[in-house]
């Protein structure tokens, strides 16, 4: 298995819900707490496992705002694991998830230096490294209903821009999405082979068309009514 995320840059609205859901779940999860320093001050600082940045792509009038959530890419060639001197960082054989054993980490920061994606952040209070676990304490939990056995960020995403799945299975949703939408990994030139893939924004016409196809007659009538009422 090669578990990871597909992130749709076309539909992500940059609401930061994934980041807050992640913080909420993981601060009380197996690697918690995710501490903050001076949380209610002017300059709070704390460890987050997911961060969202917004970019302007291309120049006006063709410019487009793209929101890019980034967490651990669970790379195939995870240098963060190789450089770790204590053996705290490891990549699981069975599903490719990169994890940190909180009891072994000595907080030397070397893994954060080795990560090109800024996925690792030092916990300011505990002095150990924190990173995305792909909610390993959710996705295998038999106590949860099956549809909830997904990372917290995926479950919470209001635009369904995050999809969780197995990239080794060619018939999984993630694999199909990557093929259909030409998904790609970030900074391929460094050779880390990130598992997480990003779907580039679609051409406006194309995305409008796909919305048009799925609209039923009743929905069309409803929209027409809405438009009339708003006028």
């Amino acid at each position: 298995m090669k578990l990871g995320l597909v992130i749709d840059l076309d539909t992500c609205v940059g609401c930061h819900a994934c980041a807050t859901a992640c913080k909420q779940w993981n601060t009380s999860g197996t690697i918690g707490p995710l501490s903050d320093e001076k949380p209610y001050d002017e300059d709070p600082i704390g460890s987050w496992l997911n961060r969202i940045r917004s970019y302007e792509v291309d120049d006006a009038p063709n410019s487009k705002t793209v929101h890019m959530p980034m967490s651990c890419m669970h790379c195939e060639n995870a240098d963060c694991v190789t450089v770790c001197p204590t053996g705290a960082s490891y990549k699981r054989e069975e599903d490719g998830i990169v994890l940190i054993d909180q009891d072994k980490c000595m907080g030397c920061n070397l893994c954060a230096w080795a990560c090109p994606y800024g996925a690792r952040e030092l916990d300011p209070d505990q002095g150990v490294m924190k990173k995305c676990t792909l909610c390993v304490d959710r996705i295998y939990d038999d106590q949860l209903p099956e549809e909830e056995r997904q990372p917290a960020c995926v479950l919470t995403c209001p635009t369904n821009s995050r999809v969780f799945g197995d990239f080794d299975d060619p018939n999984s949703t993630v694999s199909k999405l990557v093929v259909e939408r030409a998904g790609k990994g970030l900074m391929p030139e460094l050779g880390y082979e990130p598992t997480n893939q990003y779907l580039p924004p679609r051409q406006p016409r194309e995305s409008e068309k796909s919305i048009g196809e799925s609209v039923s007659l009743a929905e069309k009538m409803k929209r027409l009514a809405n438009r009339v009422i708003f006028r």
Partner: protein
Amino acid sequence: MKPAFSVLFFTVCAGAGSGLLVWLLLEHLWLNWVADGQVNIKVTLICSVLGLSMLTLGLLSSTLHLANPKNAWRAFSRFRTSWLSREGVFAVLFYPVFFLYLMFLYKADWAVNLTATVLGVAAVLISIATVYCTGMIYASLKPIRQWHNSVTVPSYLILSLMSGAVLMHAVAMIQEYESVFNYSLISIVALSFGLVVKFIYFRVIGMPGTSSINSATGFSQARVRLMDAGHTSDTFLTNEFGFDVATIRLLRLRWLACGLAFLLPALFLYFSDVFSMYWIWPMALTMLIGLLLERWLFFAEARHVVRLYHGDQTN
């Protein structure tokens, strides 16, 4: 990269200390097997104490960098994969080998017998391996191209042997010890080598990198600008990687570092007849301060690719 003083102090101090011990051991081996001379006990003791204390101070300082030092003992466990682990193992292995060497030397009435020779050669190799590992810690980090290049490791090795040679020369000069090697000449050559390596290094890091905000975001066909970094105050990432110094200041500091670390000591050694010999210690200290500045620049000029996500156009 944010320069952490504990790490700067560690690499300079431990590098110079192990360089000094390497020269001492080479001196002994050469004395015994080639020059057929006698080991100078006083110089040996002074160099051993000085070298070992610098090495130890450096290693202790490096643990100050750890956020969770109670797990530092685990750092010896990943010798097969991690350069930091290898560095730790070699650094700690040096002590017993060197002490055994001194013991055998003492037992054989300060003659380097076969056992001492084996231990001495081993200590030299371990010492060089330690500095090599230090260099590789940085050189193995692909996200920082200012470190991930072929000059990093040679520069660590040369600067360690260079500073060791200057310290050895200082000890020999003060003790009026007739060494088998001409440490004045070796130091001048090493200082010039060091300067050349640094110039090559500045040239290498001046070349354009392969990553850009385009490859970082995956938008390769258009201009990409950061609109919002997603946080209102500093984060671990901006603190660790967002270290910025004006280019003009960096360039001035380069000259200052090169002047203090290489040019001044080399000029002093070249014209050493003019000065009183006691100037050698202030000069050695100047070199070490210059090397600290050089190490500071090594961090300050390194630009991690994560900066691309925070708005840098190229690395």
